[in-house]
C-alpha cells in the first residue's frame, strides 16, 4: 500500500495527464459529437454574448461590403423595372377592329448610322412582337423608313437615308405625286423626283406620304421643300426636301403595321400577272 502511494506520488503528473487526456479525447470522439458541440456552444451565455458583440462590431466594419451588396441588389431590382424590358409594348393598340388599318408598335432605336450611303437602323422589336418585313417605321408623325429584315426581338430598318430607299410622296397643297429618294451626303436633305415642271412648288411647302404605298398611312409628314434644284434638260422638278425626321437624334420610333397590306399587295400582284409581267 505504501509502495502504491509512493508510486502515485512519483507519477502523479503523468497520471493526471493521462486521466485528463483520456477525458478530453473521449469528449472529442464521443458518439453524439454534434449534441455536445451544440451544447458547449449555446449553453454558454457568456460566449454567445461575446460572439454577438463581435458580430455587432465586425458587421459595422463590413459596412462598405454590405453597401456594395446592397448596391448590387439595387441594380438587379432596377433592371426588373418595366422600362428596361424591350418586350414591353403597352402602347401597342391591341383592339381587333376590322376597320382598323394601321397598328403601331413602339420600339427603341438601339443602333443607327447616318454618315454612309446605305444607312440602317436597328430597333428592339422583332417578329416576336409582330414586326414583319416591309412594315413602315415612323417617329413623331414623320416617316423614318421601312423594315428590311427581322429577327426574334430586333429588326433592321432601311431609313430614308439609304440610296436604295424610294417612297411615294405628294405635295400637301396640290396633291401632286413624286418619288422620294436620298442621294447620299447630308442626312438632313432628300430629293423628290417625278413631279412635273408645270406644278407650282414653293419653298416651305410640306411633303407628305401619298398613301399609295402600303407602308405608311396617308398624309404622314416627310419634310418641307428647302429648294428647287431643277435642271433645264429635265421635264421634272428636283425638289430638295428638308427631312422632318432628324436621324441623328432618333430615339424612339413606331412601327406601322398595315392590316390590309397583304390584301392590297396580293391584289396588285395578281393584276400585274394578269397584265403579263412587271415591265
Amino acid at each position, binding site marked *: 500500500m505504501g509502495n502504491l502511494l509512493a508510486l502515485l506520488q512519483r507519477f502523479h503528473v503523468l497520471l*493526471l495527464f493521462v486521466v485528463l*487526456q483520456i477525458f*478530453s479525447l473521449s469528449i*472529442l470522439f464521443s458518439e453524439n459529437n454534434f449534441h*455536445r458541440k451544440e451544447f*458547449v456552444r449555446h449553453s454558454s451565455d457568456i*460566449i454567445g454574448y*461575446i460572439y454577438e458583440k463581435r458580430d455587432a462590431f465586425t458587421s459595422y466594419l463590413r459596412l462598405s461590403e454590405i453597401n456594395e451588396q446592397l448596391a448590387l441588389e439595387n441594380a438587379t431590382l432596377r433592371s426588373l423595372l418595366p422600362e428596361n424590358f424591350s418586350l414591353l409594348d403597352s402602347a401597342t393598340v391591341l383592339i381587333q377592329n376590322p376597320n382598323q388599318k394601321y397598328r403601331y408598335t413602339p420600339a427603341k432605336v438601339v443602333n443607327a448610322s447616318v454618315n454612309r450611303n446605305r444607312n440602317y437602323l436597328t430597333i428592339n422589336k422583332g417578329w416576336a412582337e409582330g414586326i414583319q418585313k416591309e412594315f413602315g417605321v415612323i417617329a413623331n408623325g414623320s416617316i423614318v423608313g421601312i423594315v428590311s429584315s427581322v429577327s426574334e426581338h430586333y429588326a433592321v430598318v432601311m431609313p430614308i437615308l439609304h440610296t436604295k430607299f424610294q417612297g411615294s410622296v405628294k405635295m400637301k397643297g396640290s396633291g401632286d405625286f413624286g418619288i422620294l429618294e436620298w442621294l447620299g451626303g447630308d442626312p438632313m436633305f432628300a430629293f423628290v423626283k417625278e413631279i412635273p415642271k408645270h406644278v407650282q412648288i414653293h419653298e416651305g411647302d410640306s411633303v407628305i406620304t401619298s398613301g399609295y404605298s402600303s407602308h405608311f398611312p396617308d398624309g404622314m409628314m416627310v419634310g418641307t421643300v428647302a429648294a428647287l434644284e431643277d435642271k433645264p434638260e429635265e421635264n421634272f422638278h428636283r425638289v430638295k426636301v428638308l427631312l422632318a425626321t432628324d436621324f441623328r437624334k432618333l430615339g424612339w420610333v413606331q412601327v406601322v403595321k398595315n392590316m390590309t397590306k397583304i390584301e392590297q399587295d396580293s391584289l396588285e400582284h395578281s393584276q400585274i400577272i394578269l397584265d403579263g409581267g412587271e415591265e
Partner: protein
Amino acid sequence: MMNYLRILFLVILQALVVSRITLFDGLVLPFLYIFGILMMPFETPRWLLLMVSFLTGMLMDAFTGPPGLHTSACLTLGFLQPLVQKMLSPREGYDTNLRPTLFKMGTAWYVTYAGVLTFVHHTWLIFFEYLRFDHFFMQLLHIILSTIATILLMVLAQLLISPNKSRI
C-alpha cells in the same frame, strides 16, 4: 493572478480576432492563445500547469471547434512544457527571478522553447482535427506554416508589450 488573466485575455483574443487570420485559404492559422501557457513561471507545479492547460483548452473549445480538441492539445503542451524547459535549462537551473520570455531568456533559447512546444501543440491539434493522412504533405505544410505564424506573433507581442528596461 496576472498569468491567468493573460490566458483569459489571449483565449478571447484568439476566438475573436486571431482565429480570423486565415492566410492562403486557411493554410496559415496561428494559435496565439498558447502564449499564455508558455508564459507560466518556471516554478509552477506540474499538476497546476496541467490543470491550467486543461482549463485553457476547455475555454478555447467553448469558443471554437469540437469539444476536447484544444483541451487535448493543451494538455499535451502543459505536460511537455516542463520537460522542454528542463532540457533547455542551464547546468545550475533557472534563476528564481527568470521568466520564460524572449528578453529574460534570450532569442535563441526562446525560439527553441516556443518552437518545439508550439510545433507539438499544432501537430497534435491539426492531427486530431483531421484524423486523416491523405493530404499528408499539405497538413505538414499547414502545421509548419501555422507554427511559424504563431511564433512570429508571440515574438511580436513581446517586442510590442515588454517595457524597454527589461530588455537585455
